[in-house]
Each structure stands twice: as structure tokens, then as C-alpha cells.
């Protein structure tokens, strides 16, 4: 008997529905891991972390299961997950988020686990980055900032000061290359306003300083020295591509980009941002401390802390990560190792961190990022034909915006 069309469709739909329900109920459910960790790293680093966890951590703690998820959209995912309590047990981010996520209670203090012995393992600045309003919320595992990378095939000796750098930049520009690759972003640019005595935000007085003389001079200096010799594409990926494509000898970047350069087998060197000889001062870039947080929806606090502590204090893990990916350790015993001190990349970044200024921890800093980003982008586009939109005008306007946002925040 031939089936009617209606019957055939009904049977197909029924099969799909039954199959769906059966899959849902019969699919073997993997039990939840004891500790779920969200990270955001490059694929090669993800492999490294996972294999280390599988070998080293598993060996020491066979009873703790860990699931590591590398999320390209980590920030967005955390913004959505943290308030709803659906987040991971642990996650990694730079320390400057501490005010933003600790104030509403999205992360949980770990004071009960903290001992003097643990505290003394880390650099003071790194430990300080994990505390907020007297409580410890995270453990530090690396420091980061930006330094000057150079292509050794194009430049034999790195510049000692800004005049030398400027000469090199101009000479490459005259050869039809770009003078320097420099992502235009307030974090990357911060070295110059700080070098001139300015600041974006004072963490103690909680006031923005976008229109201070130092900030205005520093940003003007940055534009004057670099803007004319740079490509029009100012995003980080385009700028890095110029450096890896031998289109420019210099790149300002942080440890996060080192793994990629090594993978390409680039012959590159590193030096601290050169001294501003005109005013006899050093540029001071913002520094960040990479920390591992415990969310307030943590499943098993004890187990989560065990992993957290291993992650931040396992010597072999931290050392290998530093040597392979240019991470700057903040664990004293690793910093003292001869291999670490002999490594050009790690030791230069470490030196640059010492010269830098920690990013503010206050949640109010968020009110300053947008105005300063907009101001720097606008000035970069206009340079050198500012018209009536001079750095003074644009930065004062940005300061006004930050102040009114702050007033609203407090009021």
C-alpha cells in the first residue's frame, strides 16, 4: 500500500521529534568538571596550558578535574555570564577590572586561603593589583606592558634614545618603508603622557587628567614623532602585519604578541621604549598584572583555589610559559632563575614593567577610557592640520566628558 504524502510527512516529523528527545535523554552526560576555567589566549598557548595541566596538575591532584575553555569572546562572555551567576569558576583578565567586578560582588574574596607565605612569593606590585578594599580577590601570574620590538635583519643596534629612534624612523621612511608600527590605542600610547608627567586617571584622588599639560604634551609628542611615518591602518592586526611583512623595522607591542612572532621565526630583538632626550625623561607605559579570579558562583571553592594556586605558583609552568611566550613572571623564585634573567625578551619586558605605571584599579577608570580613546583617534586623524581642533581643545573636551560621567556616577 502506497503511503499518502501526508502520512509520509507525519512519519518524518515524528522520527525527527523522537530522535531529538532520545538524543537529549540518552546521550551520555559528562559530569561537570570540578573546576571550569575560562581563558583567552592564542591557540599555541592554549595547547601549552592544556598539556601542562593534563600532565603536571593531574599528577599532583589526581582527584580534581579541570576543564579549560579558550574563549575568543572572553570579555563579552564574562559580561553576560558574571551577573547571572552562570560564569566559570575561575577566569583570567588584567587586574584593572578589579573595581568593576568586585564592587557588584561578581568575584569572591579568597582571604581565607591567603597566608603570609603565599603572599611573599609574589612581587609587591603584583600582589597589590589583586587586592581591593582590603580583600584579596585574585592571584597574579604575569605582568604585561608594551616595549619596542625591532627587526634584527633591518636594524643592527636598537636606538638608545628618541633622537636615534627618530633618525632611524625617518631613514626607513625615506627608503619607502614605514618608520614604525604602533597600534593607536590609549593603552599603547600611555607611555608618552606619563613620560611628560601627565596621566589619564589618578587612582588615589579618582580624578581624570586628560587636559593636564603633561598629557597634552605627551600626546602631541607621540603624534609628532610617529604619526607622519605610520600606515593609515592603525588597528593592531594591520600594524603587526607591517612588522612581520618587513614593511617597517619597529613595532610597539606587548608579550601577548611574542608567541606569534616566534612562530613566524622572525629575527627580532627587543628594547625598552627609548628615553625622551628632549626632556630627559623615560616614557612610562601602563602596566597590567594578569590575574586569575574566582567568580562568586564558584562550584567548589577549595578545589578551585587549589587550581588557582597551582596556576600562579607552579615554578616549572611559569618558567616554561615565560620562555616560550614572553610572559613576564611575577613569582620571585622564577624571576631569579638564571634562564629567565638571561632571556632577552622576558628580562626586557620585566625592566619595562618596572619603569611603567600600573593601570588604575578603580571602577571609575571605565569612564575615562572612551573619552581618551576618542580624543587620541581624532587627533591622530587630524594631524598635522588640527584647525581649531587642537590637542588642547580636543583633550579638554575629553576631560569634560569624563568629569560629567564621573559626576553622574557619584551623584
Amino acid at each position, binding site marked *: 500500500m502506497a503511503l499518502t504524502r501526508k502520512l509520509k510527512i507525519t512519519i518524518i516529523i515524528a522520527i525527527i521529534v523522537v530522535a531529538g528527545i532520545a538524543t537529549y535523554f540518552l546521550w551520555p552526560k559528562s559530569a561537570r568538571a570540578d573546576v571550569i576555567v575560562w581563558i583567552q589566549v592564542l591557540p599555541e598557548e592554549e595547547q601549552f596550558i592544556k598539556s601542562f595541566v593534563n600532565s603536571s596538575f593531574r599528577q599532583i591532584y589526581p582527584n580534581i578535574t579541570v576543564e579549560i575553555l579558550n574563549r575568543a569572546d572572553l570579555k*563579552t562572555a564574562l*559580561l553576560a555570564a558574571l*551577573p*547571572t551567576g552562570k560564569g566559570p569558576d575561575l577566569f583570567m583578565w588584567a587586574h584593572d577590572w578589579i*573595581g*568593576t567586578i568586585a*564592587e*557588584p560582588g561578581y568575584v569572591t574574596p579568597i582571604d581565607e586561603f591567603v597566608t603570609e607565605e603565599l603572599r611573599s612569593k609574589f612581587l609587591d606590585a603584583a600582589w597589590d593589583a589583586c587586592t581591593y578594599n582590603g580583600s584579596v580577590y585574585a592571584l597574579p601570574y604575569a605582568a604585561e606592558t608594551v616595549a619596542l620590538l625591532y627587526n634584527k635583519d633591518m636594524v643592527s643596534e636598537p636606538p638608545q634614545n628618541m633622537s636615534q629612534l627618530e633618525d632611524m624612523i625617518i631613514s626607513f621612511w625615506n627608503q619607502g618603508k614605514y618608520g614604525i608600527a604602533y597600534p593607536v590605542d590609549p593603552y599603547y600610547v600611555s607611555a608618552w603622557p606619563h613620560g611628560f608627567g601627565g596621566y589619564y586617571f589618578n587612582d588615589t584622588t579618582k580624578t581624570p587628567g586628560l587636559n593636564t599639560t603633561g598629557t597634552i604634551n605627551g600626546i602631541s609628542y607621540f603624534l609628532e614623532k610617529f604619526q607622519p611615518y605610520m*600606515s*593609515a*591602518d*592603525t*588597528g593592531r592586526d*594591520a600594524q603587526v*602585519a*607591517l612588522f612581520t*611583512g618587513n*614593511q617597517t623595522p619597529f613595532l610597539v607591542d606587548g608579550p601577548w604578541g611574542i608567541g606569534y612572532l616566534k612562530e613566524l621565526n622572525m629575527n627580532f630583538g627587543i628594547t625598552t621604549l627609548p628615553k625622551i632626550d628632549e626632556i630627559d625623561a623615560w616614557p612610562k607605559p601602563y602596566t597590567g598584572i594578569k590575574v586569575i579570579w574566582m567568580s562568586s558562583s564558584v562550584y567548589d571553592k577549595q578545589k578551585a583555589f587549589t587550581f588557582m594556586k597551582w596556576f600562579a605558583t607552579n615554578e616549572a609552568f611559569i618558567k616554561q610559559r615565560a620562555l616560550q611566550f614572553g610572559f613576564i613572571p611575577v613569582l620571585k623564585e622564577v624571576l631569579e632563575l638564571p634562564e629567565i634573567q638571561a632571556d632577552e625578551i622576558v628580562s626586557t619586558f620585566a625592566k619595562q614593567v618596572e619603569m611603567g605605571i600600573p593601570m588604575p584599579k578603580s*571602577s*571609575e*577608570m*571605565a*569612564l575615562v*577610557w*572612551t573619552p581618551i580613546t*576618542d580624543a587620541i*583617534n*581624532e587627533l*591622530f*586623524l587630524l594631524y598635522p592640520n588640527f584647525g581649531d581642533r587642537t590637542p588642547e581643545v580636543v583633550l579638554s573636551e575629553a576631560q569634560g566628558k569624563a568629569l560629567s*560621567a564621573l559626576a*553622574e*556616577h557619584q551623584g
Partner: protein
Amino acid sequence: MENKQPERKIEARSIWKTNKAYLFIIPGLLVFFVLNLYPIIFSIYLGFTDAYFGNITGKYQFIGLRNFEKLLFSGDTRFYYVLGRTFLFVATSVPLKVLFGLALAVLFNLQTIKGRSVLRSLLILPWTLPAVLSILTWRGLFYYDFGAINGILQAIGLPRVNWLNDATNAFVAYNIVEVWLAYPFMMTVILAALQSVPLELHDSARVDGASAWQRLRYITIPLIWRPLLFGIVLTSGASFQAFMVPYLLNSGGPANQNELVMVWGYKQAFQNPGVYGSMGLAAAFFVLVSLIILAFSYAGLKLGKITVE
């Protein structure tokens, strides 16, 4: 008296029929209430609060019309700038999409073109690709130093164009990508309409000596006008809500000069999670924007008399 019985039977059967229909749409309605209606009402409510990342769990407060006042009357003209830029984008991208779609549809409706169905399927490709992939590929093509477009321009002796870091050029780039993404939709709508135009009309017009242009102008367009207008209204809505194109190409840049409504609202709500009241303000912003889109779509439909009375 004898007639009563069958009448009641019919009535009962029709009630059962209607009720049965309700039974079947319950799942759909449930999905609509939970996934559409509730978020819409909640978003509207958020527009009247000081919600942000730090208090979104429920500690936010009702602040009346403050957000709307801030957007419209605070002296910060950003709202009007973003809205103006968006209208400009609608005004440029929609005609381009329609013309491009119309041209291709008319072309592929010609009997003389060989292998039409294969070509047509190929032309629908942009529709089937994930938009994110297409847009990121376009971004690569637009790169100043390595992009293929500048490579071609240079190869034929023209100067390179700063596509993504110049406000006007970036706006042109948005239009190009938007047309690429949306022409398959317009083409399909128009093609379907074209196929319903009787060939006899063309034949008799041809006999009367009408040129190809005259036939397009006086026969084809009037006959496909309603579906065409419907397509225009829908695609205008899409242009108005463009998010991925500006956001992925250069985040509404350079220096925020090409921020369209969706990009601005998204940045407001999510870019800097510590900004007090930012989600409330973004919600209020989207309420205003939705009202504007609604008004325009309604006007468009009314104008074309497409609404079913």
C-alpha cells in the same frame, strides 16, 4: 425542529476546529512570549532605569524619563549625529541595493541568457555565507597596505585609497559591503515578481514598437511595484539596523565618525562595563530608534498600499 440537530453539530465541529487551531499555535505563542515579547518589554523598562553592568542583577532603580532627556535635550548632540549618519546610510545603501538587485533580476529573467538557473544560484552565494565571514574577508580586501583592492588600484596605476581610516571612504566601503550582502535578497524578490509578469504584455508592447526601456518603465515596474516596495521596506529596515558591517569593518570609525545607531547603542551598553547607567541609556536609545524605524516602515507600507486592511 428537525433542523436544529445538524446545525448544532456543525457549530460544535467548527468550534472544535477553531480551538484545535489555538492548540496548535500554543507552542509558537509560548516561544514568542518567552523569547520575544518578554525581552522587548524588559528592554523598554530598562530604558527608564539606571541599569549598568554593576547593578544589572536587580539593584537598578527607576529614574523616569532621565535617559530620554539625556539623549534628546542634554546639549550632547551625539544622538542626532548618529541618527543622521544612519539615515544617510539608509539613503545611500537602499537605492544601491535595489538598483543592483533589479538590474541582476531583469538580466537573469531574459530568455536569451544561457544557463540562467546555474548563474542565479551562484549569485545567491553571498546570502548563504555567514555574514561575519564575508565582512571580515571584505575588511581584509580593504586593508591599506595588503588589501587586494588597493593592490588592483596600484596595478592599474591608480593611487591607493585609505578605505577604513577615512570617514568618507569607510562610509563608501560600508555601502559596498552592504550591497554585496543584500543584493541576493532584492534579486530574489524582484525575480519572483518578474516571473509573474505575463509575457503577452511584453509581446504586444513590442508589436506596438515600445523600446526595452519603455517596457521596463511602463510594464515591468508598475506590475512588480508592490513586491518591490515590500522588499525596499524590509531592506531599509536592515540598513537602519546595520551592525556587523560597521562594527566589523572598523567599529564605526575612524574616531567614531561612522557610528550607526546599532554600533553606538552596543558600545554604550557593553564597551565599558563600569559606566554607570550605560545599559539603561542604551535601552532608552533603542526604544527611540525602534519607534523611528516603526514609523518609517509603516509609512512605507501605507504609501505603497501594501498593508492588508
